[in-house]
């Protein structure tokens, strides 16, 4: 087990290095950040001065090593625009993204799990078809367009909910629904297939043979085992949603890390962009590592096969 964890952790570190190097190189390959940052009328001397000031006159390998050294100390560089450490800006915004991600995860579970269970229990029925349509629409309707339509209906026409910003629960409902929409479909699909698998297993047949009522079989026996993969996926999805909510946060003016990235892009603030993107990779590599280790604990076969 210990060996498995060490090997798996080493893979994660390698992955993180490749990712950070990729991001680092893309930022430097695609243009001179200093030219983007300075006024168009700036003289070459001015550009050199700025370069020196931000440490951009050094060679790329030196810059990369410095960058990684600082990253391990929790320093992601200094934002061009805000003149503040990127990590400070990032952690200021992170709680908002976590709130939104959590709310969206809850919504995706609330839609996906019951619908998935019903469609698995009543397979090939009218209910199953409704669930299939929901799953298909979840993948087809872009979340950000759903967000715009929600604003139109609930803010403009009905005037029930505020259009933007963060505050009480009414601010969270629409962005969480728009963000969780796509993931609800994947929850539904997974719950359905997982339930079908469990319902076909021997111990469920035995429970039915004992004469237990259907409700007890589904609720007490099948439900518990079928939901392990579903909740695992929900956890991974939540981390993805925290990091991938850029458009939803822009539409609803939600002050999270997605909007921080968006602002960084439009202000040509490349340390900020670089920092936010690397943090996203860091979080997702981290959650994948955690999930793999948890699964190895639950299922010893995994430790041996890799």
């Amino acid at each position: 087990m210990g060996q498995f964890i060490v090997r798996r952790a080493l893979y994660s570190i390698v992955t993180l290095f490749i990712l950070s190097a990729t991001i680092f190189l893309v930022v430097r390959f695609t243009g001179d950040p200093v030219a983007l940052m300075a006024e168009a009328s700036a003289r070459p001397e001015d550009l050199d001065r700025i370069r020196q000031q931000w440490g951009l006159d050094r060679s790329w390998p030196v810059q990369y090593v410095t960058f990684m050294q600082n990253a391990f100390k929790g320093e992601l560089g200094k934002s061009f625009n805000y003149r503040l450490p990127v990590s400070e800006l990032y952690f200021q915004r992170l709680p908002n993204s976590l709130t939104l991600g959590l709310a969206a995860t809850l919504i995706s579970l609330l839609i996906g799990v019951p619908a998935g269970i019903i469609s698995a229990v009543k397979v090939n029925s009218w209910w199953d078809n409704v669930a299939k349509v929901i799953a298909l629409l979840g993948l087809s309707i872009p979340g950000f367009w759903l967000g715009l339509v929600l604003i139109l209906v609930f803010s403009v026409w009905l005037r029930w909910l505020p259009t933007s910003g963060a505050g009480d629960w009414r601010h969270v409902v629409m962005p969480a629904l728009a963000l969780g929409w796509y993931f609800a479909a994947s929850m539904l699909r997974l719950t359905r297939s997982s339930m079908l698998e469990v319902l076909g297993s021997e111990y469920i047949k035995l429970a039915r043979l004992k004469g237990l009522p259907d409700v007890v079989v589904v609720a007490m026996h099948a439900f518990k085992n079928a939901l392990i993969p579903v909740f695992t996926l929900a956890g991974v999805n939540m981390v993805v949603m925290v990091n991938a909510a850029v458009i939803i946060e822009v539409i609803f003016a939600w002050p999270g890390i997605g909007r921080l990235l968006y602002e960084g892009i439009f202000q040509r603030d490349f340390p900020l962009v670089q920092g936010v993107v690397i943090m996203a990779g860091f979080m997702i590599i981290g959650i994948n590592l955690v999930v793999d280790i948890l699964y190895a604990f639950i299922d010893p076969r995994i430790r041996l096969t890799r």
Partner: protein
Amino acid sequence: MATVIMHRPLARGRAASRLRAVLKAAREAPQLAVVILGGLILIAIFADFIAPHDPTLPVKGAGVFDPPFWMPGGTTTTPLGTDFQGRDILSRLIYGARVSLIVGLMGTLVAGSIGTALGILSGYVGGWVDQIIMRVTDAWLALPAIVFAIFLAAMVGPSMWNIVIILGAVYWTRYARVIRGEVLTLREREYVKLAEIAGASKWRVIKRHILPNVMNTATVLASLTVGVVIIAEASLSFLGVGVPPPQPAWGLMLSEARSTLMAGQWWLTVFPGLCIALIVLATQLFGDWLRVRLDPQQRNL
């Protein structure tokens, strides 16, 4: 001489049966998906003849924010209304189909080619080549695709063909993973071993025995990627790092509509979104059908 005579009828018979198979497949395909996709492809190709107005110029005599024709103030000259510059929404939607389909199909083609090539290389060559390719794949998969795409688009700069390359560069990873797994099992098959023993070069084995066998999987993945790529393009255009104005892209139209959403001018927001949902729905239906048809092992997924 004898072999030539032997082969001819056989070849003809094979061509005929292949044609029959294609026709049979066309009849079995989900009709809704075929009608929507076929219709949109025709609209995209013949946009110049179908669109009533120039999509980039204001319509003469029309105002700005004219509503659709069935609402008070609407006219049939601009059936779905006009936007903030007085341009015809319907014409922009028609030309937008072209952008969505080109980016969706070409982006998928780029992603599929890179991913399939690297997947085969990784699985068949193995060793350190495999290690390097798979670690890079892992690293690229670690970022949410849309964040990676936004990042690349912001760095490279907006244009339709840049977006094709960027989305190809973002979405190749899942092909590489899946194809590699498939190649790993193919590599152990008898006929591949026999070809190697017979002295076939690596390149020949890949071309004759590996590639044809992974094409079905690659096709299924591609059919399911098109919709994802189309939504990604719309998202990038919406954020202003995708297809630049004044080109008529659906995502861009949604972005332009945002400023007047609060005024209740719903047609600017509703129609482009419906178009995106419709095209993605059709590709999903088609992809699901293709998956069951080409890959019986995945039927329970």
